[in-house]
């Protein structure tokens, strides 16, 4: 059930109507049932994995809290983490590992017949696994109390707005909201509407319209492409993946706001970042903070020597890349970003948010830094989107060796301008306001105009083919 489908909105209208009529406990039961229906819509067999993961982590956290001995606490933590990673590894990486192992053995002359399983990847497994793992780790670290109510905990894991593509929620922010009766303070409808409207604009009008522009480059025979077409196709993918993923997060946030439950912000105008570090503070914030808190800091963070810090950065970004999927292109993408973070690290103090410094950067310097960062990020997207590392190399080479403007490159650029420039202009305004909800606080006629623009774009400029959200595969 996709957020950009009519069936989801029919489903949500029914859920919302019942939700408003029920008491707190009834609301939680409703959320549980609705979330299982929402998730089972893809494939009912996935529900068993979800339920198993929920029960395991619920019990693990209780055992960890109840046990006084540190060793036993650690044992329960390891058990929980291993089973969670086992699920993830089996569903996500089994095929990749057997394929790569067979290839490696074949390269040294050993013909191995490894068991091949056609494993269907449960949608969003990486998201809810990370959700529940963070909960068990927080309980182990003493940063959170184990939840005794199985219903509350189950809703925390499977809460449908964020379950399949995030934002990844920490137990400290989401569990108390589920445990407590919901209170509508006023403003939920306006804020929720804003998030939903922006999310639909990003996903339906922008991402899905730019998807074929990007695909036409990445699925084409490179022999027929010019460097300009590759560059513009990469720009199209950069906008597509941003609007696709942040659009999903935004709709999730809006829908959840209507249910009086706050989800964390997952994107903060990432293409206005002035450095790779700044980019990761704005892009997929719930994952980057998860990796920082549970991986980078666990590895030692920046507490050791300079080289240990670099190692930790590289390892974190390598694993962050691998989290996206079993493919060398994702690994290369993560490693590339790790390298960028290491290269920029010496300048980190100087590049910390320029606007917040005593003397803000001059406009030209800021624009230059944004342009450089955007192009570095695009180089990463080339790796990320390519079908293979050799294709990524071929396409990157074309940008340098065969760069000439073609009518198709001009067409693609104009498509990007038509669909994405109004959004980027709006985000530039929000960036200047330093308030993500600036539009919600604007005058009625300003919002009316802005929402009318979105309505017109959705009505008249919807895509030929609706696409699934890219991040579902992760």
């Amino acid at each position, binding site marked *: 059930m996709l957020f950009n489908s009519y069936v989801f909105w029919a489903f949500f209208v029914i859920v919302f109507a019942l939700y408003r009529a029920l008491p707190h406990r009834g609301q939680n039961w409703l959320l549980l049932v609705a979330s299982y229906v929402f998730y089972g819509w893809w494939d009912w067999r996935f529900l068993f994995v979800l339920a198993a993961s929920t029960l395991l982590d619920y019990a693990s956290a209780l055992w960890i809290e109840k046990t006084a001995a540190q060793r036993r606490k650690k044992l329960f933590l390891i058990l929980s983490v291993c089973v969670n990673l086992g699920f993830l590894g089996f569903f996500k990486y089994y095929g990749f590992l057997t394929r790569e192992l067979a290839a490696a053995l074949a390269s040294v002359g050993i013909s191995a017949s490894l068991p091949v399983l056609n494993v269907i990847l449960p949608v969003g497994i990486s998201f809810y696994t990370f959700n529940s793992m963070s909960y068990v780790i927080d309980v182990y670290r003493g940063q959170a109390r184990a939840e005794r109510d199985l219903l509350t905990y189950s809703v925390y894991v499977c809460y449908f707005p964020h379950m399949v593509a995030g934002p990844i929620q920490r137990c400290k922010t989401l569990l108390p909201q589920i445990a407590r009766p919901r209170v509508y303070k006023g403003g939920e409808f306006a804020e929720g509407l804003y998030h939903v409207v922006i999310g639909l604009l990003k996903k339906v009008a922008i991402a899905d319209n730019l998807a074929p522009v990007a695909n036409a480059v990445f699925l084409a025979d490179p022999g027929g492409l010019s460097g300009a077409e590759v560059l513009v196709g990469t720009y199209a993918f950069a906008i597509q993946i941003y609007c696709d993923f942040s659009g999903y997060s935004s709709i999730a946030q809006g829908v959840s706001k209507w249910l009086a439950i706050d989800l964390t912000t997952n994107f903060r105008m990432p293409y206005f970042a002035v450095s790779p570090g700044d980019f990761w503070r704005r892009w997929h914030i719930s994952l980057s903070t998860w990796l920082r808190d549970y991986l980078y800091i666990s590895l030692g963070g920046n507490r050791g020597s300079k080289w240990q810090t670099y190692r930790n950065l590289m390892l974190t970004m390598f694993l962050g890349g691998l989290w996206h999927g079993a493919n060398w292109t994702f690994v290369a993408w993560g490693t590339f970003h790790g390298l960028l973070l290491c290269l920029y690290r010496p300048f980190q103090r100087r590049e910390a948010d320029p606007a917040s410094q005593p003397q803000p950067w001059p406009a030209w310097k800021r624009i230059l830094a944004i342009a450089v960062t955007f192009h570095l990020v695009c180089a990463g997207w080339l790796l990320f989107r390519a079908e293979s590392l050799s294709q990524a190399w071929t396409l990157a080479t074309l940008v340098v060796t065969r760069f000439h403007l073609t009518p198709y490159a001009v067409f*693609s650029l104009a498509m990007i301008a038509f669909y994405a420039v109004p959004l980027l202009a709006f985000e530039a305004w929000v960036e200047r306001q330093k308030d993500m909800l600036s539009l919600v606080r604007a005058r009625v006629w300003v919002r009316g105009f802005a929402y009318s623009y979105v309505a017109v774009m959705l009505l*008249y400029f919807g895509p030929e083919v609706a696409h699934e959200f890219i991040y579902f595969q992760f």
Partner: protein
Amino acid sequence: MSSSTSSFRQEAKVLAIVAAVLLAGEFAVRGLETRLSRDMLHIRSLPDVATRVAGCRDLRVLFVSSSKVRTDIAPAVVKDVMTDLGAKPLEIERVFPDDTSVIEWYYYLKHYFVDAHCEPDILIVCFADTALQDDRAVHPERLGAYGTGADDIPEVFRDDIGDFGQRTEFLLSKVSCAFANRRRIRSRLLDSLIPGYRGGADRLNAAIRSTGAVAADQQYRVMTKLIDLTRKEDMATLLVAMPTQHGYAIDGRLLSALRSRGVPFLDLRQVDGIGDGQFRDSLHLTEEGATVFSKKLATELMSNYPAIFKKTSPRGSHL
């Protein structure tokens, strides 16, 4: 008054502005509907076509297909050649909504001709490539707005549109002209705003569209339904395979289905005098190509099916 109520009232005003803008768009599209495209003009003229068919005393021949019938068949040429070859007096009419396939042809025929009791004597279904396959994409918004009446909804939902989203689009199109024409409006606007839009869009569409492969479980269910409808209404039916630039194969199961129902089939994929130079794009013929093809079609109709077209035969006999 609580802050929640106040907030909701504020947003209600915002939504009222959005509704006003959309309503203005709806009225504008309704007013300009026939100017949106040549195709729209044609669809809006179908009741007149049906009236002409109903009022005609000669042999009534109706060609049904997509835009290929508009570009590839010159009715005057077909009529002249057939008359010269001894055909009885006949009138040719055409139905050619753009980018359609057999599902849409069935409903257009049913809605404008059968339900209005304006059936032709002979229906000639022209097709190319995969247009007769069951798995061809349906345009629910066009079918909803222009191809069906309220009575057709149960049949459409039972047989052809099972997806909840497509059903919603179908129903929305029944009430909103703007919604039904959104793709046309987008194409017109982008064509004027984006440099090289048509060429670029063709390249993108080529990547999206299927490769023309025949699905393994192809049953030709809709085509069979179309033939059964024409049988029931006492129309003679004939299928014609049209030429395309790159050619295409004809599925053996299609031929079996036609044979089992006794429907004549004319294979005109290859026609002498039609080569690459006679195509304006990969699908449509130039004016010169259309003349060549129309002459060939007329000649083949007369030589293969004299029983129906020659002066000596009674009107309305089956092929």
